[in-house]
């Protein structure tokens, strides 16, 4: 069963090294310098990178392999989050039971929705998943408020039972942890002007990301993965061979739903709140964008795409005019104002514009997503020409 090539092993090693050293890699600029604005090495964002990486890797198992484009994947993310927060409320602040429940519930949810939706293919399948997800969102926002706490989102409170923890003492809310190891604990390593943050929660997420990545690699290289690819290539022909493809697609759907559930559970474990917007169609669309942007069907692409979008959302939205002025303060006043005036359409409140333009540029010039860009760069610099089917020319995202 172990059919990993050398290239695969290298990829896995690459992922492990990158995730473990992320606090260094993401904080390249010294504290207090003008460029520090672009540092992304703080716990919350690193956690998000890992969590959305898991989500995109899972989505890729469905979309990248079978070509089925689900437009309702955010529903599983939301379900996972709600299950996890309920676990924190009822049982214990330990993240293990919460994560287990969120994966199971999301899996069941995916089984039901997948069973129905997979009766159709192509865009009809996409719209079915979208319809289920939008229904979940609408209900979670309003009618199901007793379960989901609607608009505000489900939070832990002081008077939750928490059977295993024996309730909460008066005063402060408990925090999520792993057998006493608190998710929010952070070591700060100061090296000269640099400050690197090592957060327990991030490393938990990173370990899950590596496991998720490893599992998806196994699936990609397994006979099951091969079967899924066959479905994408030509389902009709597959059916003529007397093979029923439904169980395979359903399995892929449920697995990727469970990935989303895990991601949702981790989100809640890092920050015990589950909001309904997590299930909205825009959130589902974001997952699709991450995967295609990074390179659907590739192993690393979706993780890259997830990082790309989250980076923009969190870093570019915080650059305001004031920051711009400090950057360009050495320039003459007139020039400074002119530059700031131009730039301020693209950052801060205009970060959507930058993101939209980058989507277009990537899709127009890099049909295989960011992974194709990476490959082109590698090709330009010579070595490592022959590569596995991992390259985007092998990918032809679903239609």
């Amino acid at each position, binding site marked *: 069963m172990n059919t990993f090539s050398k290239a695969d092993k290298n990829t896995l090693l690459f992922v492990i090294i990158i995730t473990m050293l992320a606090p260094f890699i993401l904080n390249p600029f010294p*504290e*207090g310098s003008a460029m520090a604005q672009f*540092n992304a090495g*703080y*716990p*919350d*964002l690193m956690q*998000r990178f890992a969590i959305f990486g898991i989500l995109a890797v899972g989505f890729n198992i469905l979309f990248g392999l079978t070509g089925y484009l689900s437009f309702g994947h955010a529903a599983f993310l939301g379900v996972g989050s709600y299950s996890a927060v309920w676990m924190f409320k009822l049982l214990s602040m330990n993240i293990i039971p919460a994560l287990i429940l969120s994966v199971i519930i999301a899996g069941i949810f995916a089984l039901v929705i997948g069973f129905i939706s997979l009766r159709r293919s192509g865009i009809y399948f996409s719209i079915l998943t979208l319809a289920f997800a939008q229904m979940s969102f*609408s209900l979670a*926002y*309003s*009618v199901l*408020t007793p379960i989901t*706490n*609607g*608009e*505000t*989102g489900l*939070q832990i*409170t*002081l*008077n939750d039972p928490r059977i295993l923890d024996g309730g909460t003492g*008066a*005063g*402060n*809310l408990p*925090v999520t942890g792993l057998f006493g190891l*608190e998710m*929010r*604990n*952070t*070591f*700060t*390593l*100061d*090296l*000269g*002007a640099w*400050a690197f*943050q090592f*957060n327990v929660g991030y490393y938990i997420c990173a370990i899950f990301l590596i496991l998720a990545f490893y599992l998806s690699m196994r699936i990609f290289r397994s006979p099951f993965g091969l079967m899924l690819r066959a479905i994408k290539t030509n389902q009709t022909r597959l059916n003529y061979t007397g093979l029923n493809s439904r169980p395979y697609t359903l399995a892929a759907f449920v697995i990727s739903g469970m990935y989303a559930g895990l991601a949702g559970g981790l989100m809640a474990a890092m*920050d015990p*709140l589950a*909001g309904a*917007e*997590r299930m909205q169609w825009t959130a589902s669309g974001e997952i699709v964008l991450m995967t295609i942007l990074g390179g659907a069907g590739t192993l690393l692409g979706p993780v890259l795409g997830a990082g790309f979008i989250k980076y923009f*959302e*969190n870093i570019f*939205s*915080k650059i*305001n005019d*004031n920051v711009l002025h400090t950057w360009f303060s050495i320039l003459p006043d007139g020039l400074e104002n002119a530059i700031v005036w131009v730039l301020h359409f693209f950052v*801060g*409140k205009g*970060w*959507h514009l930058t993101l939209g333009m980058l989507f277009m540029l990537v899709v127009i010039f890099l049909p295989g997503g960011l992974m194709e860009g990476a490959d082109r760069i590698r090709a330009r610099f010579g070595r490592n020409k022959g590569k596995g089917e991992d390259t985007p020319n092998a990918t032809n995202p679903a239609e």
Partner: protein
Amino acid sequence: MRPDLGRITMSNFTRRGLLKTGAVAGAGLAMPTLITSPLAAYTNEPTGGSVTLGFNVPQTGPYADEGADELRAYQLAVEHLNGGGDGGMMNTFSSKALKGNGILGKKVEYVTGDTQTKSDAARASAKSMIEKDGAIMITGGSSSGVAVAVQGLCQEAGVIFMAGLTHSNDTTGKDKKANGFRHFFNGYMSGAALAPVLAKEYGTDRRAYHLTADYTWGWTQQESIQQATEAKGWSTVNNVLTPLATTDFSSYIAPVLNSGADVLVLNHYGGNMVNSLTNAVQFGLRDKQVNGKNFEIVVPLYSELMAKGAGENIKGILGSTNWSWTLGDDGTKAFVKAFGEKYGFPPSNAAQTVYAQTLLYADACERAGTFNPCGIAEALEGFEFDGLGNGPTLYRKEDHQCFKDVLVMKGKDNPTNEYDALEIVEVTPRAQVEYAPDHPMFAGGDLGQCNPGA
């Protein structure tokens, strides 16, 4: 470059480079050494010459303009705190602790973020302010969902949250937190202020039909208005919940005229409110006679931007606001002057509440002599003040809600300019909108204890 200082610190909610102070410790060592530093007394304790505030407002999405107005007010407040401009309401504020030299002598700096009016995004943005930028206080927002979510986060992180525009009873009711404070008024107060005016203007035997946004804020708002108007003798014909995503309210408005109701109450906010009011006026409801009376429409919560979006349709319609730039007191005048001269138009009531919140926070720091959230909370609890535009105001200790006069507003028939869409009908005195901390509409919550983090 040889790293001349290497150390590891542990903190719960993290803070970048707090440790520039201990630079001596590692000097002369070739290898980074690992020293456990004394724990900071509270999250993001400012050590340098400046203090960072986090302004978390919607910059994308339907409330972006409201967020932009809040941001303008924040920038103005920072300018005034640092001694710039004409000082605005600092001159009229009854507490004289602020000196225009920053807060506790430290220059005020700020970071901004985008809540996208989503609780998830708002929390992500607030977290990045706390973890990356070292913000000591988070403020802003223009919806109750976001306010409650961010308030919960600030409680866990150990920083103060000064709520922006949030009108749900829950913010200082069942979701109240020890680290969170609200200056804005709430649904109960809207009901208590509006009901007497409604009874006076439209009579006491009215039959009301409610359209309510189907989520927490809508429900608490509707409950408040129904209770307050029924106490004045009105009856409630129906309460129909409308989905949040509704853009066209025609199918909800069409049956109203035939229901026997003679007043339509629109418990909507933002885009929902603009559309439902526009649709209702389109149907010509206001030209009709029902039960021998003129049909009326009420919008319990107004904002200047919504009034602008609804245009002509707002004329003659009653609602409530937290504040209005047309008030005549000194605080208002000073603020409107400072804001108007800087930006060229008068501030909205969202701008006023966030400006006041920033000054109140800074003032509490000065009076407490610390940035420690627990010290600040103590200074704010039970604080009586005046001169911030709303008359004598109390920050109540039990639920961290401000009690002050509430304005009943009406869409002006002949606005003289585009900022003059609303006029004040009545300034409802504070005593009339007060309620007991354990009022059933606010029950079920617990402030907990203040959390300084670290």
